[in-house]
């Protein structure tokens, strides 16, 4: 069946973008595919909303300093235990650290939301969100609270239209990812520092002095495992526990600058390679041998991972699932994986293969909107968004999808069953009523339906809007209509 071109324009705005703003479907005109592809051909320029945000280096440096101060204060308090007042000095500082970071989080999340609400190129913005979720960090880990948005803005946003390998290298060497997956102190047993600690342990044991034994140090395999499982090959990508452990050894030394005394190295809060933590020697991973080359060893592994067919297939599956259907058609996954391989991981070629696949333009929507997509598209359709940052961000929290807070390195799930709970639906209804109430009764719901959905609005929904009690009730019905809940 041939989908009318105006309906295709509505699909371009809603399925590929973050929802049509008034006038957008008409502006897309007669070339919806060209409209999408133009968005990824444009040279990257940082959106104006990002101006004024503090860099991750500065934020992280202040976090590390505050944490060090807290530790020192706790230590002092422990020494003064005799005059203990019953208060926990650490507690006040915990709150202090949070207060230090929260404004950065709010500023980053508000900027992200405003970029989307004002975006003409909302397909590009959707891709930013897609990759940010692929490389998820989560603000429930204190080290990420202030810099989760910075990871997106500094490492991801400028690289979604280049090669995947460059994106991968930028993300894995960003302090937010290093800190989220605990790599900053992962240490090779035979590294300079590892050997020093081992000697001190042996000496203390020989002297029979239990209190002088330094703590055990060594590998942490969290980052290595999640790169293989989530960022590149995928869980069935053919790696073993031995590959995880070896990769963790490869990545020792990928750390965060700062530290005190002899451990001070690099710019505080910035990525640093600490050669003293790096496990020396050649390593064999997934059948390939990597000569000892300091930090270059890890970069070489990452570049090779980016070229693996399992990586192509893993990324192709996720993209197809995000844009087309929860269970993506095999033909599309094959097509995207092939485009990835044939173009050395050049991402725009993959996006083009997606946009140019006819099956992606079926009229019937197969994706149920996640909360953030629903909030974005509602605010875009009604051109209604609170100015005050906390109010702007409140709906994401109320509907269960706070920015950069998936709670796990796997990111937010991307299937309907993860989002269509009964209570979730009720919360969407409640929020729709509140938003529609703010917009008021003067707004024409039928007009808004035409502008937001074009030919996708059904007769059933149009008649429900016409028969509503009030303008704002009609708007709430529009937002909660089956076709607006999907894309």
């Amino acid at each position, binding site marked *: 069946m041939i989908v009318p071109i105006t309906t295709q324009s509505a699909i371009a705005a809603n399925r590929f973008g973050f929802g049509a703003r008034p006038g957008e479907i008409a502006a897309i005109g007669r070339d919806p595919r060209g409209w999408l592809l133009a968005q990824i051909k444009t040279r990257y320029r940082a959106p104006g909303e990002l101006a004024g945000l503090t860099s991750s280096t500065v934020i992280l440096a202040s976090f590390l300093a505050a944490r060090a101060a807290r530790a020192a204060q706790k230590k002092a308090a422990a020494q003064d235990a005799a005059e203990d007042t019953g208060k926990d000095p650490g507690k006040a500082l915990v709150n202090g650290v*949070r207060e230090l970071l*929260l404004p950065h989080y*709010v500023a980053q999340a508000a900027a992200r939301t405003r970029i989307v609400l004002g975006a003409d190129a909302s397909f590009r913005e959707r891709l930013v969100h897609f990759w940010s979720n692929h490389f998820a960090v989560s*603000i*429930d880990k204190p080290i990420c*609270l202030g810099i989760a948005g910075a990871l997106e803005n500094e490492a991801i946003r400028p690289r979604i239209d280049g090669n995947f390998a460059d994106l991968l290298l930028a993300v894995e060497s960003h302090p937010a990812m290093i800190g989220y*997956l*605990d790599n900053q*102190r*992962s*240490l090779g047993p035979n590294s300079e520092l590892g050997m020093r600690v081992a000697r001190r342990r042996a000496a203390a044991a020989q002297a029979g002095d239990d209190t002088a034994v330094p*703590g*055990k*140090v*060594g590998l*942490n*395999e*969290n980052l290595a*495992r999640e790169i293989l*499982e989530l960022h590149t090959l995928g*869980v069935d990508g053919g790696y073993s*526990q031995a590959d995880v452990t070896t990769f963790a050894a490869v990545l020792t030394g990928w750390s965060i600058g700062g530290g005190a005394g002899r451990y001070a190295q690099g710019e505080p809060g910035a990525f640093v390679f600490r050669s003293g933590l790096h496990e020396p020697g050649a390593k064999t991973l997934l059948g390939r041998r990597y000569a000892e080359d300091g930090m270059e060893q890890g970069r070489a592994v990452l570049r090779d991972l980016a070229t693996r067919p399992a990586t192509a297939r893993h990324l192709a599956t996720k993209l197809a699932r995000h844009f087309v259907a929860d269970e993506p058609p095999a033909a599309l996954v094959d097509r995207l994986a092939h485009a990835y391989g044939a173009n050395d991981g050049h991402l725009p070629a993959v996006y083009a293969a997606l946009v140019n696949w006819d099956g992606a333009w079926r009229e019937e929507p197969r994706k149920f909107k996640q909360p953030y997509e629903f909030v974005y598209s509602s605010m875009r359709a009604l051109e209604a968004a609170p100015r005050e940052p*906390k109010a702007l*961000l*409140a709906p994401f*929290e*109320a*509907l*269960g999808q*706070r920015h950069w*807070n998936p*709670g*796990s390195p*796997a990111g937010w799930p991307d299937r309907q*069953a993860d*989002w*269509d*709970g*009964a*209570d*979730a*639906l*009720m*919360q969407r*209804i*409640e*929020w729709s*009523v*509140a938003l529609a109430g703010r917009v008021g009764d003067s707004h024409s719901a039928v007009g808004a339906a035409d502008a937001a959905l074009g030919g996708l609005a059904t007769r*059933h*929904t149009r008649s*429900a809007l016409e028969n*509503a*009690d009030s303008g704002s*009730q009609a708007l*709430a*019905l529009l937002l*909660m*209509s*089956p076709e607006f809940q999907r894309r």
Partner: protein
Amino acid sequence: MRSRREFLATTAHLGVGALLAGALPGVTFAAAPGGRPFVVVILRGALDGLSAVPPFGDPDYAAARGAIAIGRPGDAHGALDLDGFFGLHPSLPLLHERWHAGELLVVHATASAYRERSHFDGQNVLENGGDRPSGSASGWLNRTLGALAGRGVDGLALGQNVPLILRGPVPVGSWAPSRLPEVEPELITRLRDLYSDDTTLSARLDEATRMEALADGEAPAAGAMAGGSEAARPYGGGRLKAIAETAGRMIAAPDGPRIAVLDATGWDTHAGEGGAQGQLAARLGGLDQVLDALRRGLGAEWPRTAVLVCTEFGRTVEVNGTRGTDHGTGAAAFLLGGAVHGGRVLADWPGLGAKQRYEGRDLKPTTDLRALTKAIALEHLGVSARALPDIFPASELVRPARDVVRA
């Protein structure tokens, strides 16, 4: 404007019990007829079972765990003794009371069928009840509900959405406290019409109004919910505790759902895990409170209740290089409740020595978790043995445990 409650009183599909529960907040009902309550608490992220249930009697325990080892009972901040060999983490004093009441069954060195180390695949296997991560799109608890069809047992997810364990052909509700104002019932009627051609959305809408009716009578005032206005605090123990207590009352209501699932995240302690105090200790203290809140909420139904606390897999025996533990295999689980034949540790202890471990690094699993879940389905929920192969496929060799609940 009529209140949601009055509106619901006019809808036909509601039972009288739910109406009473909604109309008379605070009234405690006597033990209700119908199925016995069963709650699953999933600890996502892989709980360190060797800290939650320290085997202080194992000769290799203290050395393997080093700085994060839990001391013996009687030591400062030592374990709470269970049976002279196993203990509970000192942050679990309320759970320890359940042990003394004979209401806590501890299962150790247990695992699902999954033997790799991905959280997400591990959770899939835990929840789908099979032997493969992608084995099934439905959860074993939903298939259990299917096997109990017609016996007045409904399912409830305690959260906005439904986790895999409860997903499947049997419709289940979900509930979480909302900070948004309630909507006019008239709009619900209009949406019901708007969804008349949409089977998914209309089913969800029906479930949502039903659960709201139950919760209306049971929810504490909004001010009692921890959380407040802060934009970035994860849903912590305070909020979960409030949800648990309300959920207990919803489950205990005469027409309440009998089977519920609560998720608790944040157990992935790769760095700075801590021992008797610290990161994990704080989480466990929160869990202790949540479980007790659930018990209080269930009130008179507690003696008929079983609560399963489980996680996708355990963590490494040895501490890693950053004072945490990495993904492992054998884990600990709890079954507690007035219906539970407790005061026992169910474990075929493999030992912690290097040669006794799974792949040289993890606690070796010796008890299939499905032995426990099968026993719960049979003994506690009254599922027919014939239904087990459908609920737990590809597990013919896993025999149900015996006498996990009191007759």
